């Protein structure tokens, strides 16, 4: 059983991603949605924490939220995969349960 975690807050506003990373097991996945997609940016004060778990956790970000915020041309964290809402649905299906970090 592996969980899908969703994070919807910018790491610079509220550090939910840190709390999530503390409790996310290896083998789980984290999907960044809404303002959470700012955590997908490479080279920020928040990115090290995420890249440290690269390889043991799969990172995803919702493409439409990336585009909405004008981040399409920016470099995203290596290894992170963009998905659309259909992809979001697929992830929920693939993982055993969803933990939304609100």
């Amino acid at each position, binding site marked *: 059983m592996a969980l899908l975690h969703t994070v*919807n807050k910018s790491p610079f506003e509220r550090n939910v991603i840190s709390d999530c990373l503390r409790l996310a097991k290896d083998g789980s996945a984290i999907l960044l*949605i*809404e*303002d959470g997609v700012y955590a997908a940016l490479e080279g920020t004060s928040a990115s090290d924490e995420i890249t440290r778990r690269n390889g043991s956790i799969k990172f995803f970000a919702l493409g*439409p939220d990336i585009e909405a915020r004008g981040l399409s041309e920016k470099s995203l964290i290596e290894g992170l995969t963009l998905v*659309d*809402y*259909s992809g*979001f*649905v*697929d992830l*929920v*299906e693939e993982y055993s*349960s*969803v933990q*939304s970090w*609100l």
Partner: protein
Amino acid sequence: MKFGILVNEGPFTHQASDSAYQFTKAAIGKGHEIVRVFFYHDGVNNSNKLADPPSDDRNVVKLWSDLAAEHGVELIVCVAAAMRRGINDDLLAAGFKISGLGQLVEAGIIGDRLVTFGD
């Protein structure tokens, strides 16, 4: 697969309801079944038929009503949360129904997945 959807925030102030809507629409598009969409906390405000946003922006309440009409999606507004916030049957937009928290628990039981959208 059967999905239960929980919406914890009202329209416009948070993106939660929009995200939930887009997810629900995508799930239906992929042939999944939506057990119900349950609106809790300020999420009950998604049912307010008096919502009248500017015409050049989406009407979140209407989007949900239309989804219910087109695909038979059950939209349940929690009675306790609704009463706290002044939502009653007279205010409900088409497709919404007021019911108890048991409907949320049941969605968790009979659904394969419960996905929460909130703050």
